[in-house]
């Protein structure tokens, strides 16, 4: 574990400077920008009827995170854990250190998770404050945002572990990851009955209370939520399984660069 810690610190330093982190940090602020625009809407375009800030938070900001940002951050960071070292031909520097192979994956996973969680939590918290700052003194409001952050964090870890695993053995992992994110996850999660339980998104959405059914309710139309405890256990279990699988594959597989 100490070796994994050293790897995590090394890659936190590298990740903090990378173009990818800068790009995703900007992208993670898109919901904040939306929140600001929503707050300014009455000023810019006064209309007699409008939705509440609670509605916008649950139906616009949160879905952007759940259905897009979590997936994108997990996909691009998770697949990069092994593939960027192989394609960038820097893996030899790491393999020539006295580090057990699993520690490389664990350390990079921890560094990527830390960066991803930071991006999402900062963005979500800021969006929440912008939309609901009038009620910032209400402890129930804080419980809501903390619950949402915990759900996003758990879903990020689960997807990150999945894409880390994918990146250990699939060459075009980003392509297949995109197919999974916008094909499988966004289709299967809306199938009726037990089929929707085959999507990770099902368990993530099961942990988020149904938003008030208005303009965007079609997004939740067919969700038949699983119990919260089961959803947490499934997400945590999948995270552990995918991560363990990634460690096993990386420990046994040799990586040959294109040359």
């Amino acid at each position: 574990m100490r070796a994994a810690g050293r790897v995590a610190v090394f890659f936190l330093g590298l990740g903090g400077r990378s173009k990818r982190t800068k790009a995703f940090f900007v992208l993670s602020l898109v919901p904040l920008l939306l929140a600001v625009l929503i707050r300014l809407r009455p000023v810019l375009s006064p209309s007699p009827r409008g939705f509440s800030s609670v509605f916008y938070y649950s139906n616009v900001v949160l879905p952007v995170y759940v259905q897009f940002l979590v997936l994108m951050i997990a996909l691009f960071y998770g697949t990069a854990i092994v593939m960027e070292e192989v394609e960038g031909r820097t893996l030899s520097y790491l393999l020539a250190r006295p580090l057990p192979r699993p520690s490389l994956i664990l350390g990079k996973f921890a560094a990527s998770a830390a960066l991803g969680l930071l991006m999402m939590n900062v963005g979500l918290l800021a969006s929440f404050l912008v939309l609901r700052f009038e009620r910032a003194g209400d402890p129930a409001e804080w419980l809501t945002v903390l619950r949402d952050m915990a759900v996003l964090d758990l879903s990020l870890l689960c997807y990150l572990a999945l894409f880390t695993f994918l990146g250990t053995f699939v060459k075009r992992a980003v392509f297949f990851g995109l197919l999974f994110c916008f094909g499988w996850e966004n289709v299967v999660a809306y199938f009726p009955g037990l089929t929707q339980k085959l999507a990770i998104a099902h368990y993530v959405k099961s942990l988020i209370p149904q938003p008030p059914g208005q303009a965007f309710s079609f997004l939740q139309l067919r969700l038949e939520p699983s119990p919260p405890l089961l959803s947490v256990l499934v997400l945590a279990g999948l995270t552990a399984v995918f991560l363990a699988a990634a460690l096993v594959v990386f420990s046994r597989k040799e990586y040959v660069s294109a040359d």
Partner: protein
Amino acid sequence: MTPVLQTFKLSKWYGNILGLSEVSLEVRPGVTGLLGPNGAGKSTLMKLLTGQLKPSLGRVRVSGQSVWNNPGLFRKIGYCPEHDSFYEDTTGRQFLWGLMRLHGFTAAESARRTEAALALVDLVEDKDRLIRGYSRGMRQRLKVAQALGHDPDILILDEPLSGLDPLGKRKIIGLIKNFRAGNKTVLVSSHVLPEVEALTRDIVLIHQGKILAAGDIHGIRDLIDAHPHVVALKCDRPRDLAARLVREPYVLKVQVGAEGLLTLETGNRDVFFGRLPSLIVELDLEVEEISSPDDNLQAVFDYLVGR
């Protein structure tokens, strides 16, 4: 002396492509040069010796231990890969410091080792520049520094002199020669014979994934010297030089091309290069360029294989 690096009938395939074929080799303390043309299998052998690749057949031992998935061994192995790849958005100092930390040294010890390694390869002044702004030679020196930083007992260097200017080459050659003191082991690869000659007398010739010969460089040099050597020369009056050269017994063939280019084949490379300066002075020539075509070593190996 006990061999430090050993391979037993080591073979490696990349799919249907043969990378290495039944290589049995023993490397003892001191400097050993691994010489072969591009694509001969040098890098494959070095990757197998450093646990980057798994053998398809055969065994690899470093200090008597299997190297695959044996991270403890890397406390005493320094590896300089061939490819020119780095974490480009870091500075040279951050890169080395980070790798030293991965070795388990404390922050202070890593900083001390980083400074020492940077000083060894003359990169102190540029240590805080981003690696993406480094010249080819600086990048090459940084790769050597990361292999030396933890003071290993075994140094495996894949084409460490490639891309270096003459001064840089001299510096790294000096470093490698100093390193071998203290019963340390160096395996260094190159496709340029004079580079290996400058480093060691013990060489291993590798070609098409097989070891052709191993031993003292002089014996191998004799074999190589017996093979015609091609030299290209660019000067202001190539025809005058050609007329003079055809009378020399060690010149086998002369050809005058366009733009002052003269290509010749000599049966005795050393005599030719010993005589050339006096010919240039005698004919009062302005010489722009002298080179040995890169594929020359390939030709030598083909010749050796065909004998």
